[in-house]
């Protein structure tokens, strides 16, 4: 039975000004302050970056005119370092997101069984997430210092050789990915744990009655039901990782060589070391396109599987 209030809300709205009914106008009125704020904080920087990317604005000659057409894009895209950074960014994002998701899901599943001390675990897990990436980078840089750092000291005390965590071109990339996973994993754990807690109990009870094993319950019930939450988590983390800048800046400055030079760092180099804000903006827009493309592809894959 409908209450009086809900009946009023469901009443068909009267037509209003210029084809808009009153109901829609009210909606727009409520949404407009938020939309305006979004237009200012999101729209303006994007539009300004677009203007910069097509301009001849450099720090030596800070003026938008003359219009540079696609010159900045041509200059950036013809640089081998751009493609190397783009590939590294994609590789880095996929590795870190996969790592965060797998480890995060494992921890979330374990926490799902804990009842009494769960708040304590959550509190501990949020510590890395609450830290700024710059602090995380500095702390890990000290821990991994090859000669005086505690990690190598421990390894040596156990009879193992010292490891050149950030000085070896191959290892620096993996070390950076590991540190990123360590920090970002807590976000994944919290979201997935919330998703797991919200799952209905009935399918599990039915499965238990049918004699399903734990892994079968996980595979055929938990994972499919968790998919919407997991998908959102993966997309958010993917966007985060594609934009990574702080860790390479603090840990390695993109080195050794270009082993950890991700696209955002490449854009920074162009803008502030090369003094070419226009080319930096072009590189940043290219990064934006990669982020959008990967997000769209991911959602399309999800839709197809639904």
């Amino acid at each position, binding site marked *: 039975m409908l209450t009086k209030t809900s009946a009023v809300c469901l009443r068909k709205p009267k037509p209003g000004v210029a084809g808009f009914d009153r109901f829609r106008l009210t909606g727009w009125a409520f949404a407009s302050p938020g939309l305006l704020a979004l237009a200012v904080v999101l729209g303006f920087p994007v539009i300004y970056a677009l203007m910069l990317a097509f301009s001849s604005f450099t720090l*030596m000659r800070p003026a938008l005119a003359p219009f540079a057409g696609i010159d900045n894009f041509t200059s950036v895209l013809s640089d081998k370092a751009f493609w190397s950074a783009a590939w590294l960014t994609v590789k880095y994002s996929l590795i870190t997101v996969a790592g965060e998701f797998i480890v995060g899901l494992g921890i979330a599943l374990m926490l799902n069984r804990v009842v009494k001390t769960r708040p304590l675990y959550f509190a501990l897990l949020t510590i890395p997430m609450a830290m700024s990436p710059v602090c995380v980078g500095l702390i890990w840089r000290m821990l991994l*210092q*090859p000669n005086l750092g505690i990690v190598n000291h421990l390894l040596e005390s156990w009879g193992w050789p010292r490891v050149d965590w950030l000085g070896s*071109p191959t290892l620096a990339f993996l070390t950076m990915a590991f540190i990123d996973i360590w920090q970002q994993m807590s976000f994944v754990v919290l979201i997935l744990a919330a998703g797991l807690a919200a799952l209905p109990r009935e399918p599990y009870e039915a499965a238990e009655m049918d004699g399903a094993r734990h892994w079968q319950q996980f595979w055929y019930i938990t994972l499919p039901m968790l998919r919407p939450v997991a998908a959102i988590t993966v997309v958010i983390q993917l966007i985060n990782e594609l934009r990574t800048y702080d860790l390479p800046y603090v840990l390695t400055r*993109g*080195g*050794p*060589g270009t082993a950890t030079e991700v696209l955002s760092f490449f854009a920074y180099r162009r803008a502030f070391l090369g*003094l070419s804000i226009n080319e930096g903006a072009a590189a940043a827009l290219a990064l934006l396109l990669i982020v959008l493309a990967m997000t769209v592809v991911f959602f399309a894959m999800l839709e197809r599987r639904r």
Partner: protein
Amino acid sequence: MLLKNKILCLSGLVMLSAAMGAQAKEVVLRALMEDVPETHIIEQMLPQFEQETGIKVQFEKIGYGDMHDKLVAQLIAPQSYYNLLEVDFLWAGEFPTANWLTDLTPLVKKSKFDTRAFIPSTVSLLNHDPEKLYILPMYNYSMGLIYRTDLLTDKTVAQLYQDATQKTLALPKTLEDYVTLAKFIKQKQGIAGAAMQGQRGDPNSMEFSNYLFAAGGEYLDGKNQVVLNSPAGKQALTLYVDAIKNAAQDGALSATLDDTMRLMCSGKAFSMITYWWMLPQLDNQKACPAVAGKLALAPMPGGHGESGGWGWGIPKNVSPEEKQAAWTFIQWVQSKHVETERALQGHAPVRADVYKDPAVLAKFPYYQTAEQVVATGKSFPIFTYSAQYEDVLGTQLSQVAGGNGSIDAALAESATQLEKLLKK
């Protein structure tokens, strides 16, 4: 009651406006400073300046790597937050070209400040227009060799060295000898032969420059033509890569100046090519007991090292009152008596008279060697895109030292990129 409230409000407003008026007149100098001993020395003396002039000074101390970007963001803004600038010689091409600095010439003339006392090379390092003075020298950072005297005079080490190389253990005279010795120390003594700052960018570019000048190479000739890709350049890069791989500490490719300092301080390295004024910081019983009393300074083996310097500048985008206050500070901090006081605490002078001061020489006899280091130093190419070239060169050095690519290719690419940036 109402009247009492009104009187209270009125008196509050009067006091507030008076306070605001006073605040508007008071200039606070704000400078972004590199977090190095030189800054700490001046910082300790700031109360003296404040007492003498009534002008407050605030130092924001950060690592070198973050300074350029932070400053540029302020210099392109309508009003700069920093009204006193510490300018590296590497930016001395870029900042005046971009029209970000105030010409100090009128201020010098008006105040009759005597700039003749400054060592000419320290002034020309920072100023490229003979008609104008944008940057006044603050301190120099010429680079030399700091080494462990206890290891160099150890008889057992000497014997082992003789057996291994058929040479007498002595302070190396050439770059090749230095790398040979550093490799030997690492192999036989189990400590780094050279504490090296191989992180890409400013650290490895500065370090490599010493190798280049020591091997007899140059970036540019007298006609501003690029001559980096030469036999001397090749020898320098070959020895640099060899040193990183076989003489340096583990993780040298990610090490910065701070890392090398800590390593040397802990006694786990034989030598480091670094700024000469690092010696009093390391040869310090309290801070570095493992090496205090066992260190000495020498000019770079081969005769020439990298020479650089910092200077003071005033941004264009600050008020005339701030400019005047900044100039008052610059005159004070670079005056003879303040520089001498700073030198007595380990400052690297830019005034010739301070190097000859009896009190300074009595406390630090090695200032004579330091003067030699400064006199023989050569400069990294200074032009609008010096900071970018440091990054370009640093990438090539880091790649080849990390085992990617050949020495010939890295040298050729470094030379080509320098030509390209010079023409930009």
